[in-house]
């Protein structure tokens, strides 16, 4: 089908009162950015709906992109036809015929902006319904919950018909929920937590700790690749890599084994908080789920959380691992997450970490290392990369291979 435009309906933001204007503007920008690869597409964010004019662009890839933009409740590909009843009837019949399965029911639902159109909405519904009944064998009308709803919008510049209602990603437009930083490891959980953070409209920067030579370049590339996948949902993400080798070595040397993990996490959080403050971010997101591993008991969280007063948001806090995996598969991060590269959370793991560390002991053992000096050293060596959707970090030879294939 050669659709002429896609009509996008807003989600929750229609209830946001005075902020609605900001939300719509942000969503318009986000949609335009998501569709930047289609030069002929035009995006117009209006008060009631957002219109994506295709101007001849194939609708299928545009639809795939739109499904990933947060703040969209649902959308419909629309056919524009001449504003006369015969053209409207013919298009309605062809749209229904195209998807009709035995047993389907339908209704016509007309809205009329152009009050000068000779037929009123009842009359249009009547005419279109009659045409469908006459031309689509086996069709029947049902007013409540039909399987096919033919929407007809009679506007000043033409009549717009649609039948499909494609669910959007929901949530809020990224950028309307403030700015946070995300602790991204490269495992299964943190990308899913990032997804949920973005979904509530928060603009996230990724903080990734790496410990060469204990962690490989591949592990770093994998974290960047995950960021690139997540960037599809937000347009682009800053990736902040923090060197962690020296800190880990110091902790390993000086801190009792049972507290290795707790002190490492405290240092990570402290660094993340420092980065957040530097970048005017207001909260820290991570992928912790309560009780999943030793560092994720309530006692552990309390002992680690002790180092900052910034809010720590844990979107996965009460999800089961199987639920997290399901989301990871749906958002396209799972296959990357399971690539077998060591990250800095898995090296230097003591055989029996304390599952119930105490805050006072954590503070005491942490005094054994030079916290301020190590912090300053790590902060001085932080690097920031802006990562765009579809960038390739894992396969450096992609272009060479593409020639071969």
């Amino acid at each position, binding site marked *: 089908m050669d659709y002429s435009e896609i009509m996008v309906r807003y989600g929750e933001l229609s209830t946001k009162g005075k902020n609605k204007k900001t939300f719509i503007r942000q969503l318009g920008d986000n949609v335009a950015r998501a569709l930047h690869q289609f030069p002929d597409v035009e995006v117009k964010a209006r008060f009631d709906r957002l219109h994506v004019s295709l101007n001849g662009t194939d609708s299928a890839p545009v639809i795939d992109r739109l499904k990933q933009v947060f703040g969209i409740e649902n959308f419909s590909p629309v056919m524009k036809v001449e504003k006369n009843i015969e053209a409207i009837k013919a298009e309605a019949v062809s749209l229904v015929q195209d998807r009709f399965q035995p047993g389907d029911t339908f209704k016509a639902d007309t809205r009329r902006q152009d009050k000068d159109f000779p037929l009123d909405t009842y009359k249009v519904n009547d005419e279109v319904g009659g045409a469908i009944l006459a031309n689509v064998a086996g069709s029947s009308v049902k007013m409540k919950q039909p399987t096919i709803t033919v929407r007809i919008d009679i506007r000043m510049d033409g009549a717009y018909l649609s039948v499909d209602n494609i669910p959007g990603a929901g949530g809020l437009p990224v950028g309307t929920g403030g700015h946070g930083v995300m602790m991204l490891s490269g495992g299964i959980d943190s990308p899913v937590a990032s997804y949920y953070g973005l979904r509530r409209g928060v603009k996230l920067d990724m903080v990734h700790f790496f410990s060469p030579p204990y962690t490989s370049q*591949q592990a770093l590339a994998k974290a960047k690749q995950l960021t690139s996948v997540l960037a599809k949902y937000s347009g682009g993400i800053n990736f902040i890599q923090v060197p962690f080798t020296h800190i880990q070595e110091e902790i390993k040397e000086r801190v009792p084994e049972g507290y290795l993990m707790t002190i490492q996490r405290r240092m990570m959080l402290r660094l993340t908080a420092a980065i957040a403050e530097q970048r005017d971010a207001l909260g820290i997101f991570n992928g912790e789920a309560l009780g999943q591993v030793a560092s994720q008991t309530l006692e552990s969280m309390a002992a680690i959380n002790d180092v900052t007063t910034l809010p720590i948001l844990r979107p996965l806090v009460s999800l089961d691992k199987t639920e997290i995996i399901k989301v990871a598969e749906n958002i396209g991060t799972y296959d990357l997450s399971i690539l*077998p590269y060591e990250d800095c959370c898995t090296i230097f793991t003591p055989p029996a970490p304390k599952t119930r560390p105490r805050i006072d002991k954590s503070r005491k053992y942490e005094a054994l290392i030079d916290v301020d000096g190590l912090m300053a050293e790590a902060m001085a060596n932080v690097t920031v990369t802006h990562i765009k959707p579809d960038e390739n970090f*894992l*396969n*450096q030879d*992609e272009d060479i*291979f*593409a020639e*071969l*294939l």
Partner: protein
Amino acid sequence: MIYFDNSATTMADPAVVDTYDKVSAAVWGNPSSLHNFGEQAFNLLEQSRKQIADLLGVNLSEILFTSGGTEGDNWVVKGTAIAKRQFGNHLITTAVEHPAVHNSMEQLKQLGFEVTYLPVDDEGRISANDLRNAIRPTTILVSTMAVNNEIGAIQPLDDIAAVMRDFPKVHWHIDAVQGIGKGLHDHLFNDRVDFMTFSGHKFHAPRGIGFIYKRQGRTLAPLLTGGGQERNLRSGTENVPAIAAMAKALRLILTDEKAKVEKQQAIRMAIYNHIKEFPKVTIFSRDDPVFAPHILCFAISGVRGETIVHAFEDHGIYMSTTSACSSKKGVESSTLKAMNVDTGIANSAVRVSLDEHNTLAEAEKFNQVFDELYQEFDKLD
């Protein structure tokens, strides 16, 4: 040489062989190795998989590499029997399948599974109604070919899909080995099919490589267990050079597919329209879109298929007595037998099978040789 035996195998495309050679020489690491040389091979493997998935419009994880069509057919049939044993022991297939499916079914029969072979009509096609009636509560798999390798009949895939939609728990396998690049994409990749088998050397890739399509979420037991390659479903170090070559071959065969299909159809019809005038000729492939564009099966009564093949060979024209697999064993065509074709005439059957490199000039040459040979054969009477 005029090569009219493309359903037996196709010539490996030189550009594809070039990819095979380059990858063999330069990217020979084991994709499972941790170091970056292995990593490079892994990346090429996955990039090839992605290219195939994108070309076919499916998900990356739905493409699994095999050694070819025979392995794919064996895997889906037996792997389903193993994986779904607890849900039932009944499998359905057609009377005209390739031996890779047929003999897998026979082997399962010996293990206590029940198999229904659906009969075909005089065009070699099953009826959707027969299929519907054959499905039992214990049915776990329906396996149908897309294009018959002997006469080119296309099974009524859309009608089969309609039946299968009413039995969402029964898995459906399409043996699509003869169906790739023949304009059948929308019929093959329908919303209902669970598994499909493909073979590289039928579309100008090297021997010994193929793949199956496995719909996301469908269970299939591995037949080759070991190091856990291919998502733990098909162990064995991946044949990266052949996989990369196949990805390229698929891209090439699907480029301008429509024009290629029309060309083959025109060549096929040029021969069809010529030989149909001869009284002793029986043509099993029809002039109808339910037959594939590249296969023409016919018989000259009173002359053995083998004799016809060798007589054409003397004029530099290569074809087969029905399927290449059975031609050396001297067994009669199973498809023609299932169509209730008289044994005498079935033994006279030969198959012309085309690809996009064949030309109308070759068809004309074939027709000339045909006239000549027909006269000689006529004298035999």
